[in-house]
């Protein structure tokens, strides 16, 4: 190969992006010690929204799996907290164990879901979520459909709130870094190939089903972790219908599409936007939905690629680049470089 061709992966950008993210992470981590807890408590929601949006984006934006049933794993993660908490683990430990267990449970579920394609897959995931809800509410120990509370938790509210905040933040950072690292690896290349054309990916040596299954499991674990955060924050589940509700899928789709599907940054933007709309308008009843609808219409009309997609297209800005650039130097004067013909 001629030596005047370079492959670049924006290592500087990636390093700046990661360094910036790390600084932000540290700042966010010490925030509950500095700011008033009434402020930081609210951010827990932002963190689990970021987690949910990133996971939905990983599935849909990078692997082409449009699921409207991720609430299955949110619900299982939330209920898993009770199961392990009752066996003596702290609520936080329970959340982590539950997320891992949900990952294991997602494997057989994926075999069921992957029998379906496209729109049927989407509906199938929803049916699976409903089925799991119906199974869960049959257990009296899990509240038999009336919801229940976490039994063993720290009674000190300051300590509890701080731990919950850290867990939510940790989960969000973990989800984002997992996406970034995965997508920069060869696994990310396989995923995006599958998203764009399964048949071609398969005939180029990519294990389509295996790769999709790995992502499905990661997505399940991320949603379960978010679900356990939701459960821990409110010290229990008020209603199984809500935690297994399809509205979670609607919000995930909203955040990802508005923020910018198929980018790492987009879901974060979408989550921020949704977080503020929710904060200021969620009490305004019908207007809340009207505002969400108007935002969705404006975004589809003017930013079809989402907020970050628009920023990216306009200024070629990417904080977390995962793509490759080929740089071909045309340096006739430079005798050191071999030209293609001399090869």
């Amino acid at each position: 190969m001629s030596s005047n061709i370079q492959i670049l992966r924006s290592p500087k950008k990636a390093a700046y992006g990661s360094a910036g993210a790390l600084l932000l992470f540290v700042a966010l981590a010490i925030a509950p010690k500095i700011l008033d807890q009434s402020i930081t408590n609210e951010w827990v929601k932002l963190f689990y929204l970021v987690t949910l949006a990133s996971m939905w984006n990983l599935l849909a934006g990078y692997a082409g799996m449009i699921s409207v049933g991720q609430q299955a794993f949110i619900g299982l993660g939330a209920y898993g907290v009770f199961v392990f908490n009752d066996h003596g683990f702290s609520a936080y430990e329970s959340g982590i164990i539950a997320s891992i267990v949900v990952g294991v449970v997602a494997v057989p579920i994926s075999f069921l879901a992957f029998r379906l394609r496209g729109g049927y897959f989407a509906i199938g995931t929803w049916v699976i979520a409903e089925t799991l809800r119906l199974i869960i509410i049959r257990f009296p120990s899990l509240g038999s459909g009336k919801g229940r509370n976490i039994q063993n938790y720290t009674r000190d509210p300051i300590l509890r709130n701080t731990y919950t905040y850290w867990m939510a933040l940790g989960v969000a950072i973990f989800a984002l870094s997992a996406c970034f690292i995965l997508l920069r690896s060869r696994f990310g290349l396989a995923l995006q190939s599958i998203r764009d054309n399964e048949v071609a990916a398969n005939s180029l040596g990519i294990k389509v089903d295996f790769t999709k299954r790995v992502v499905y499991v990661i997505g399940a674990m991320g949603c379960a972790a978010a679900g356990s955060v939701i459960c821990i924050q409110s010290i229990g589940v008020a209603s199984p219908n809500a935690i297994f509700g399809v509205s979670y899928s609607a919000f995930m789709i909203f955040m990802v599409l508005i923020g910018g599907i198929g980018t790492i940054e987009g879901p974060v933007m979408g989550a921020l936007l949704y977080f503020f709309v929710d904060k200021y308008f969620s009490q305004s009843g019908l207007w809340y939905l009207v505002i969400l609808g108007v935002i969705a219409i404006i975004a589809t009309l003017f930013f079809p690629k989402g907020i970050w997609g628009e920023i990216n297209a306009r200024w070629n800005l990417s904080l977390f680049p995962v793509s490759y650039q080929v740089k071909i130097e045309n340096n006739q004067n430079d005798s050191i470089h071999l030209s293609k013909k001399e090869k």
Partner: protein
Amino acid sequence: MSKSYGNLGVLFDVSLSIPIGQAVGIVGPNGAGKTTFLSVINGTEPTSAGSVFFNGTDVTKQGAEERSRSGIGRTFQIPRPFSNLSVFENALAGAAFGGGLRGREAQTAALDALEKSEMMQFANLRAGGLSLLARKRLELARALSTQPKLLLLDEIAGGLTEAECISLIATIKNLKDSGITIVWIEHVVQALVAVVDRLVCLASGTIIQDGIPDEVLKSREVLSVYMGTGI
């Protein structure tokens, strides 16, 4: 092997043995089953009956990804680019998975494939934005990036100008000279006969002629299949 889609039979007891290093051309009218034949060889479609051997191994039960890893590369008649990836990334996927290469080696193989298929100038473009011609070239580049021992080409010369066709012929000749076994479906017969050692004519799912290109083209069976359509 035989292949049918439900009740529709497409290939009927097609049997072909190709020595390593040979270049075989396949001609035949539209709907004859040529594309299906390639799909069955590379594993995109399962066989309905019979078996496929590659390098002495029975690969009938293997998926396309496994066959790609062991050296079967294939282009699609209707291009299937990874639209949201760059041309280079398209080739890199082939090198990294089908080719089993890692890191720098994979990148070099991808660049090499782009160069051989004259796609280097498009390296950073989004594959979805390419013209049909460039998409066909990308098919070739991707197949080459997997480091194939057997290369299956499906109508890659259609729509080329004379000069482009000549350069494509040179490229494929080079591939053949480097020891790659080639099966090439093409309607542009002049391009085929410039490269292949052997010509097979497929019609209605059966092989009606198989032999030296000139003789096959002159045979009564082939002429009658193409009667009126010209070849």
